[in-house]
């Protein structure tokens, strides 16, 4: 548990009585249900705390797993209450008591058997992204489950950028899932196991700088791993890929020859918008690519809305996830942009699924940089 008992109770008391963050809860936006608002969940948690509800009460599991846990309620909250952690803590209790949705154990099994939550046996990424050199490489890259299985083109694009710029790199041959999904689902046992597996792989890396293609993995590395005894090697620094690209631009090592002529907009992945606050680097790269053609969405930066891909909701309530993604795509369409750009393969995947016809193109920032070399 990442909240002390006192913090947890204080957060429950605050959230159960307060409706002030309702406009930022995307599940509530989709369903219109009071139970899907942060206050509704807070009331349920108070009911559990006070004995007015039991963990087996009808609706408790369903409602507590219908939350994106995207960090936006906390960002919105003047009191800065950690709403997400309160819900994750409750999910952990549901897992421990055996009341979690079936998807939780299915995902744990898939990760153990295939290394990813989709249950898809992937081909090794190393031949696709590029061979690791024999001498200590400049960087190591962590791809993430989504890039390895759902959006390999993003991983290939990163490989292309590094080779073109002459930056030696290595890819983890035995890369495991980073554990974010298991953690958000309350399956702390699996999350800790995955964290330790990843940490062990990273300990075998020769590079001292780790670039994470996955925003979720970056968040886990920098905010959660140490608590599970899975700290990264002391000599290893970690950056998100957008920070790395921003550094290359500043150093003059990244020359973007082909600029984007269409209007573009940017979706901040929630793990970058909040939790790690990587807001400026992707914008620096975007401005270099698109200049005046870059336009922000209404809900952007620290207040960026979820793409619908977080909190395990795509696995427990796919229809809610899809509708949330559609809301985000519609926001992008209202900017007049022809390209919706993100900086996480998981976000790219969810947003792409919500596009209808050819109304807008969804691309990862890394892919656009690779195309511009």
């Amino acid at each position, binding site marked *: 548990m990442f909240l002390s008992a006192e913090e947890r109770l204080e957060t429950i*008391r*605050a959230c*159960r*009585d*307060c*409706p*002030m*963050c*309702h*406009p930022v809860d995307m599940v*509530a*936006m989709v*369903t*219109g*249900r*009071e*139970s899907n*608002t942060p*206050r*509704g969940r807070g*009331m*349920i948690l*108070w*009911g559990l705390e*006070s*004995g*007015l*509800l039991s963990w087996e*009460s*009808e*609706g*408790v599991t*369903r*409602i507590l797993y219908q939350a994106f846990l995207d960090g936006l309620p906390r960002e919105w*909250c*003047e*009191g800065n*209450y950690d709403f997400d952690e309160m819900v994750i803590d409750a999910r952990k209790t549901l897992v421990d008591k055996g009341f979690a949705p079936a998807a939780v154990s299915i995902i744990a099994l898939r990760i153990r058997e295939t290394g990813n939550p989709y249950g898809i046996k992937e081909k090794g990424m190393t031949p696709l992204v590029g061979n690791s050199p024999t001498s200590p490489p400049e960087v190591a890259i962590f791809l993430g489950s989504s890039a390895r299985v759902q959006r390999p083109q993003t991983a290939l694009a990163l490989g292309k950028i590094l080779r073109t710029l002459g930056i030696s790199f290595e890819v983890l041959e035995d890369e495991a899932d980073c554990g974010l999904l298991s953690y958000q689902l309350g399956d702390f046992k699996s999350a800790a196991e995955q964290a330790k597996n990843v940490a062990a792989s990273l300990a075998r890396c020769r590079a001292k700088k780790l670039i994470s293609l996955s925003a979720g993995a970056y968040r886990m590395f920098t905010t959660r791993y140490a608590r599970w005894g899975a700290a990264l090697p002391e000599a290893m620094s970690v950056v998100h890929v957008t920070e790395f690209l921003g550094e290359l631009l500043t150093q003059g090592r990244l020359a973007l020859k082909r600029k984007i002529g269409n209007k573009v907009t940017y979706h901040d992945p929630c793990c970058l918008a909040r939790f790690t606050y990587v807001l400026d680097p992707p914008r620096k790269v975007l401005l270099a690519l698109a200049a005046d053609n870059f336009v922000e969405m*209404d809900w952007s930066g620290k207040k960026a809305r979820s793409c619908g891909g977080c909190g395990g909701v795509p696995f427990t309530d796919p229809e809610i996830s899809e509708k949330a993604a559609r809301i985000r795509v519609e926001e992008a369409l*209202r900017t007049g942009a022809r390209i919706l750009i993100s900086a996480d393969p998981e976000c790219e995947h969810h947003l792409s699924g919500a596009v209808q016809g050819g109304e807008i193109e969804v691309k990862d920032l890394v892919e656009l940089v690779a195309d511009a070399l």
Partner: protein
Amino acid sequence: MEKNLLFELVREELCDAVGEENVDTSEAGRFCYGADYSWVSRAWMDRGQKPLVPDFVVMPQATEEVSKVLKIANRHRIPVIPYGGGSGVNGGILALYGGIMLDLKRMKKIIRIDEQSLTVTAEAGVNGEILERELNRAGLTLGHYPASGYCATLGGYLAARGSGTLSTKYGKAEERVVAMEGVLPTGEMVRTLPVPRHATGPDFLNFFIGAEGTLGVITEVTMMLDPIPEVREFQGFLFGSLADGLEAGRRIMTQRLRPCVIRLYDPASTIRFVQKVLGIPVEGSFMVVGCDGQKEMVALEKKEIGKICLAMGGKDLGREPGETWWKERYKFYFPPFCPDLPELFGTMDSVTTYDKIIPLYEAKKKTIEEGFKDFGARYTAHFSHWFPWGTMIYDRFFVEKPPQDPREAIQLHNRIWAAVIRRALAAGGVVNEHHGIGQKLGYFLPEQFGSSWPVLVSLKKMLDPNNIMNPGKLGL
């Protein structure tokens, strides 16, 4: 309602009306409607007492579905409680007798923004903040900024006759209604006339405005808009006495200047909210005055207002305190900055004409501080919504350590309310100005309305013969 055969049959009818996925009978789903923002409902739950919950939660997506649900409810004599954001402070959405909680938040479409007429037509369940943001994209504003704006819905604004921070200039929500669609208690869908000002007989808008769901369900509203002003500026003043500040406000309004806001805090309120929440280190009676509109007009209004304030001994604190107040205005309503349990507190607003405002304030203050001094009761007040003829007093009582026993706590709470409401009525005030009546204040309405109360009762009986619409609210 017992979960027997009738329950299952009604459930099936409701599923048929709105879709199975939009009917929730789960224990946890219904539990979430067990409290609104009223102290009583929150304290009851806080002390581990079983809340009042509905039997069914139903989420329609269209006026036709609302109509179907009300017809089902009439057929089976089941109460219906229309629900928006659940931000009311007077128990207006509590399911006193179980029934159907009609959560309108799926009815959230912004149907049309008319940039020529400056109106917006939207479904009643649209969230206030979401609506305002959409209007801002077009350079427009609803002009309605209530504290509940982040969670309240358009229908809720009108059902409770709400006011917003800038209502002094832009009016209460009800003053901005152009037209409305709703469903009467027996299921008929009705539309009011397309404009609010006419000479075409009585106005049916008042079947819905302020009725808190007791006379039907609001489903769609057309509201007046304003352009986002060229400038909006706030100024802070400090008065040595509340009376001086009140007189300054009266002169501003009766000289027909048009500030968008005058917010005057009594000394206790200045310490509790302005000092401690906003961090503005002042003592006395703090006032914020705001003006908005075209730049030259704002400069002129500010100049004239400044003269009045200085003439009443006010000290000009400059723009910063006022701008800070505006920027942080919602902060007061987030924990831990808002009044919170375990304290016992209530917001008791009233409104009266200028000649009675000081006696009203003093009467209420005395009622609390002297009448309940054994409980250590404290009183704070500010004056936030000003009219050409008077002003409203937004006042609160606090008891830091109320009885732990929930029944004793509620008894104390209600006794305080009863004492102060009756004192307010005697001093020329009304039961409430913009927080509504709900369940809590309903039993004072016969005293407020006097000989015209039976008219309201008759209207209710005529429109709602089976008394299904939010029973037990508004004293009906």
